[in-house]
């Protein structure tokens, strides 16, 4: 251990404190939480988790969220790959303007665009489907995916493309068997970011769904009932929302560490 590793350790401790608090709370009864401060659960209970895993309106929230996040990630990466290739390899009419325009789509205040989104997706009869949320999240995920992938592709020398074409590879075959594998770290990083931003976004997801595709974050609002907040249940539900993200990031951890190193050289 070097002396300088003290900084990341302090930072990680700072990050973990609220998360610890949330997890600890999820094992407490709501009464214990409200009755006063305690660092550890005094009466350890799994009841909050039991409620979530046995009540369909709770666990379907997780399934819905995972469904639209997965669809969104697949769509975003699939359309961003060719676009990023075009931006990284070719000059064409309006390419720079188009690239910046893509960026601007992250800036629209979602809060007020929520109502037009609702009208739009109702008009095309996609309201309350997983596809609606997945497509809506493309608004901010595709620009980011194009941006990240373009960076990684820029790091691959153009000679690779030329050599492959000289060797007689058709473009689709070159793209699928040589090019994508050589930027797979970039694909991992882009997919991770798409997953992340779609998983955490709530406003659009909530606006575009009612019952059938309701995301978990919206389900959580029902912990606030006339009887007051069910804090234990809220904490357990919150804790469970961290887990899919943690699993995804554990799988892409090597891509993130190595992958970032390859891109942006």
């Amino acid at each position, binding site marked *: 251990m070097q002396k300088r590793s003290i900084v990341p350790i302090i930072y990680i401790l700072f990050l973990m404190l609220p*998360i610890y608090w949330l997890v600890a709370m999820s094992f407490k009864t709501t009464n214990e939480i409200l009755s006063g401060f305690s660092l550890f659960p005094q009466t350890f209970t799994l009841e909050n988790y039991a409620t979530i895993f046995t009540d369909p309106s709770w666990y379907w929230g997780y399934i819905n969220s995972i469904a639209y996040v997965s669809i969104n990630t697949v769509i975003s990466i699939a359309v961003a790959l060719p676009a990023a290739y075009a931006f990284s390899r070719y000059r064409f009419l309006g390419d720079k303007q188009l690239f910046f325009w893509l960026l601007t789509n992250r800036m629209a*205040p979602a809060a*007020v*665009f929520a109502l037009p989104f609702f009208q739009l997706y109702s008009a095309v009869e996609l309201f309350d489907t997983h596809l609606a949320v997945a497509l809506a999240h493309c608004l901010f995920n595709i620009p980011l995916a194009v941006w990240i992938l373009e960076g990684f592709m820029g790091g691959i020398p153009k000679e690779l493309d030329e050599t492959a074409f000289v060797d007689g590879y058709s473009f689709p075959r070159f793209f699928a068997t040589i090019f994508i594998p050589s930027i797979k770290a970039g694909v991992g990083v882009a997919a991770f970011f798409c997953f992340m931003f779609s998983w955490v976004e709530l406003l659009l997801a909530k606006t575009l769904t009612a019952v059938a595709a309701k995301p978990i974050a919206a389900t959580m609002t029902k912990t606030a009932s006339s009887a007051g907040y069910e804090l234990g249940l809220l904490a357990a539900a919150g804790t469970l929302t961290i887990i899919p993200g943690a699993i995804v990031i554990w799988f892409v951890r090597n891509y993130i560490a190595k992958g*970032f190193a390859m891109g942006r050289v």
Partner: protein
Amino acid sequence: MKTENQKAWFFVLPVLALVAFNALIPMMTVVNYSVQETFGDNVFFWQGLDWFQQILRSDRFHAALGRQFMFTFLILIIEVPLGIAIALSMPRKGFWVPVCLVLMALPMLIPWNVVGAMWNIFTLPDIGLLGYFLNHTLGINYDMTQDPVAAWVTIVTMDVWHWTSLVVLLSYAGLVSIPDAYYQAAKIDGASNWAVFRFIQLPKMKTVLTIAILLRFMDSFNIYTEPFVLTGGGPGNSTTLLSIDLVKIALGQFDLGPAAAMSLIYFAITLLVSWLFYTLMTKDDLN
């Protein structure tokens, strides 16, 4: 060097179609609302640019915009240097790298309303870990529902907690892409740590830092869910950021016209500032 190829447009078409569907149609709806008045029942009256004038002259808008700029300014001056400093002190090789990265990325993976809710409980004076510690152990009178300063400290701390890792991850990516040869050359020349940072590390991080700063600007300028869940804009109006005010007008009072005009002004400001950042940070690349 890039080759000129107009057929590359076909590669961009799917992206264009998807983003345009999501961006242009709602945008047109908002523009439409912004120049009309409605009294319900889908009857609209042409209003011209009245809403824009009304918003631009209102003190409420100026106050919310001021708070928004203040918030974003604080976020950028805290998170960017802090993120770079943490990335610099992270290990470069070995088992600890993925562990650090995974732990640091965790806050970003928590849904935004959960972030707001957990910080809300975390800071409650009598039952929250932070609130209890500050009030009962250190004896500081801290209650963000009463004191505007405490509320500001809380939303800024929450955002630092939530998003500094984004800057760390991106800066770290830039740092590990620097070949060892650069450091060896610097060592032979006897360069100080500062010189290494200034002339090797910082220029190499420039591209990723551009992304980090732009993302942090755009996202903190449009932030809604977390501060809304945390403080609801209070106490009083002290943490009512622009987006919170916008939703209050649009959904709370159902004033679609003013809300639409306001969101277009908001969008224009975001666009202008992002364009300035983007141009300033990429202008060297054009030469």
